[in-house]
């Protein structure tokens, strides 16, 4: 299991910024490098006040030539399953890449806390990911290296990096 965590601060009040992340993600997509578009494919407002969202992310990252050639366009992206608490202080999420479905586990939670005396928000994004070794074994040996490389690029660095940019882009939407 490979854990990752990042902390982002913005000078916008918690309810405002968290609401933008939850409800206006597709508007943020153009501000994110390597992200073609984001589409909300499912939204369910539950009885307990929590909200379930499934967002489809389509990406086009800069991968090494041989790796890029081995992966088709349809595989570049993921479904992001997110459950938001009613007070917007926490979002539990799970990422389901289109590439090697079922073989990659990537999940975590984002906590939003008031900061800067209430004028701002701290967003703490933490998660972990792992690749199922048995799924890797099903891939031809010649492509295994490319597969791991793609996973590490897409999941290991794109996702955390995009989190920071997502928060910053959301703040700009509020300006």
């Amino acid at each position: 299991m490979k854990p990752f965590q990042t902390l982002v601060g913005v000078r916008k009040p918690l309810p405002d910024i968290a609401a933008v992340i939850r409800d206006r993600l597709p508007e943020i997509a153009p501000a994110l490098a390597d992200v073609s578009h984001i589409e909300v494919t499912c939204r369910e407002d539950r009885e307990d006040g929590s909200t379930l969202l499934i967002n489809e992310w389509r990406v086009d990252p800069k991968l090494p030539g041989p790796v890029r050639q081995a992966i088709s366009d349809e595989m570049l992206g993921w479904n992001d399953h997110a459950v938001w608490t009613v007070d917007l202080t926490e979002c539990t999420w799970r990422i389901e890449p289109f590439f090697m479905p079922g073989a990659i586990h990537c999940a975590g939670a984002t906590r939003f806390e008031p900061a800067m005396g209430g004028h701002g928000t701290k967003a703490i994004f933490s998660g972990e990911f792992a690749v199922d070794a048995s799924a890797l074994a099903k891939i031809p040996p010649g492509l295994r290296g490319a597969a791991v490389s793609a996973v590490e690029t897409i999941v290991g660095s794109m996702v955390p990096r995009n989190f920071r940019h997502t928060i910053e882009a959301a703040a700009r939407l509020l300006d």
Partner: protein
Amino acid sequence: MTSAAATLAVVTDDAASPTDLLDRAASAIGFARMVKRALRRKGNNGEVIVVPAMDGFASGSPAIADPALVEHLIDRLYDLGASSVRVGATEGSDALWAENRDVFMRADLLGYRYFTPAGREYDIVDLAEDAKHSPFAAESVLAGISLSAALQKAAFRIVFAANRTDTADGYALTLQTLLSVLPGRDKESLYFRQRDPGAVITALLDAVPIDAAFIDAYVSSHGHGGGARPLAFETRTIIAASDPLVADQAGALKMGLDPQASRLWHAPPADVEVRTSGSVLPYDGWVNVTPIVREAARRRQKDAALDRSVRPFLQQVDTSLFPFRNEANARINTWIEPFLSVDDATVTGRQVFALLEMILAQIAEGRAAWQILFAKDAITRRPAALNVRAQDIDEDRWAGVSPTIASQRALLSGCTADAEGLRWRMVDGAVLFDCVRRYPVPFDAFVAAVPVHRTIQFMNDYIGGEAATLASDEAGRVTRQLERNLYLPQPNFTVLLGGDIIDVTKIETVHYAGDRHVMAWQTLLSANGSALADDGLVEFAAVGDDTVVAIFARQHFRQPPLVEAFDLTLLPDLHAWLVTDAYRRFASRTFANLEAVLEGRDVRIGKPAAQVGTDEPLPIDGLLALAERLRNELPDDWIESLRARFDWTRKDHLAPDRIDAHGFRHFKTVPQRSYAGSPTHSAGSGAAA
């Protein structure tokens, strides 16, 4: 500015809490009286600004002023009648390589809660956001630099420093903290490399006097890593003073250091009486930055690109709070950490760090020498504000310039010019020389494009400076001017031996006749002692349809000790060769510059100086962009294609169609192509082999 009397308190008590110590120290300097008096004087303005040391990279770092102490002080200020208290700072160069380093987020992560223990709110402000107006005079070292309006307007200003060592200046206390009010992220370039930091502090204190200075020495940071590698050390002391110079003096003495170790500090005026309570005996067990490391760090910091590159590597960072922006910096920082984490307090630890700084210093000096000798456009230009005032120069001085230079020039009569038009001689240790160039350009066109009063700025190796016009004629042409010039070391190779930038301030007069423009100048002072004399004149004269430019100068530059120690006049032939070579080079390049100015070219060497508001990317970001470009433009199979290109077995000529019995090779002829209806032409004139 220091008042006639200053108060200082050094309070140490192992049993007391930090807030108790703070209260006692404040009381000892009459803090309450000071605050009330200031608030009364300012009438309705009850605003107080506190500038704390906030450049730490971890919560609880000993390199920052304890936020709890600052908040406690804020409560005291409200008790004393302040209507608003703000904590102010600006971003530093770390904002370029670490996340969450804006003032607001940084304060939050370091422990500021935006309300005091008594529940009163205070605000955190970025002092660069309202820095729109410059309070500094035109001749100030900070001329043109804006300053926060809130800071300037405040009824009472407090600096609250941490107690820590500093690799370049030995210690970083209230004066270092005060620099954080200045705008611009790259403060190292703006206020250390491009300006004299001591002059910067003096100008700042003149513009925004500090009313009270505190040093949080309850848990200090010692060791030779300075702010980059804070090492906690309990000293259970609070220092308070009514003047930051006095506070820093006490803080340095407590560290066992001469306050002069820091470039920022200067002694308060001798007539200021300092009423002291407490002891300035050094802390027991305190570890300072060694002089060798201080020296090496200063030399390393002179190289902007190197310094900006290594700071992220050397800084200890809690990456959960302040992640690196650039993955490469993160990896290098992680890789280097074990080497630098050898116990700083031990001899081995110190030696590792000292070695690293010395290596970096050597690299910095090597790069500087390389740039001066071979890559002048990589040098960063320097702003150099004029450092004299017109009112300090009397009329006799102005009137004497031309006659003095004329009599100096007369000493060259009888000397023969060489083939390049240069002649020179030594007089009283100075070189007198003149050189001439004829331009096939009409005089009027020449002087329209090349103003004679700016000639010095067009001379070879000019790296920065400023001029002020003091008088003009009826046509608006400059007739009197003061000018400060910076040049690269002369000759350039002296940089290898420790040669310094030449810094000269001059008085200049200009005369215009119909077919002759002349500017004469004399040295007034040399701020760094590099020039004993740099007098001369330049003359533009009409000769037929051409313009003749003559330059005369009397120059005596102080050479680096290694060069001065060796009396070259004992080897007259070598000396003559060196001088001739140096001045021929000066003449040819200066004349080429004038020709280039005629064309409208910018002849300045170097890159523009750092500016507030624009940030040059970090070198590592440039390297990564280059790697990205190479990755995109080189073919994926570049190794294979390179190999194919250099395949010596491949023959690069046409194969013959057949080989006859005699061994002659016959090639298929290329079919003649002609365009329908187009007549052919026979070979005619033109150069033929």
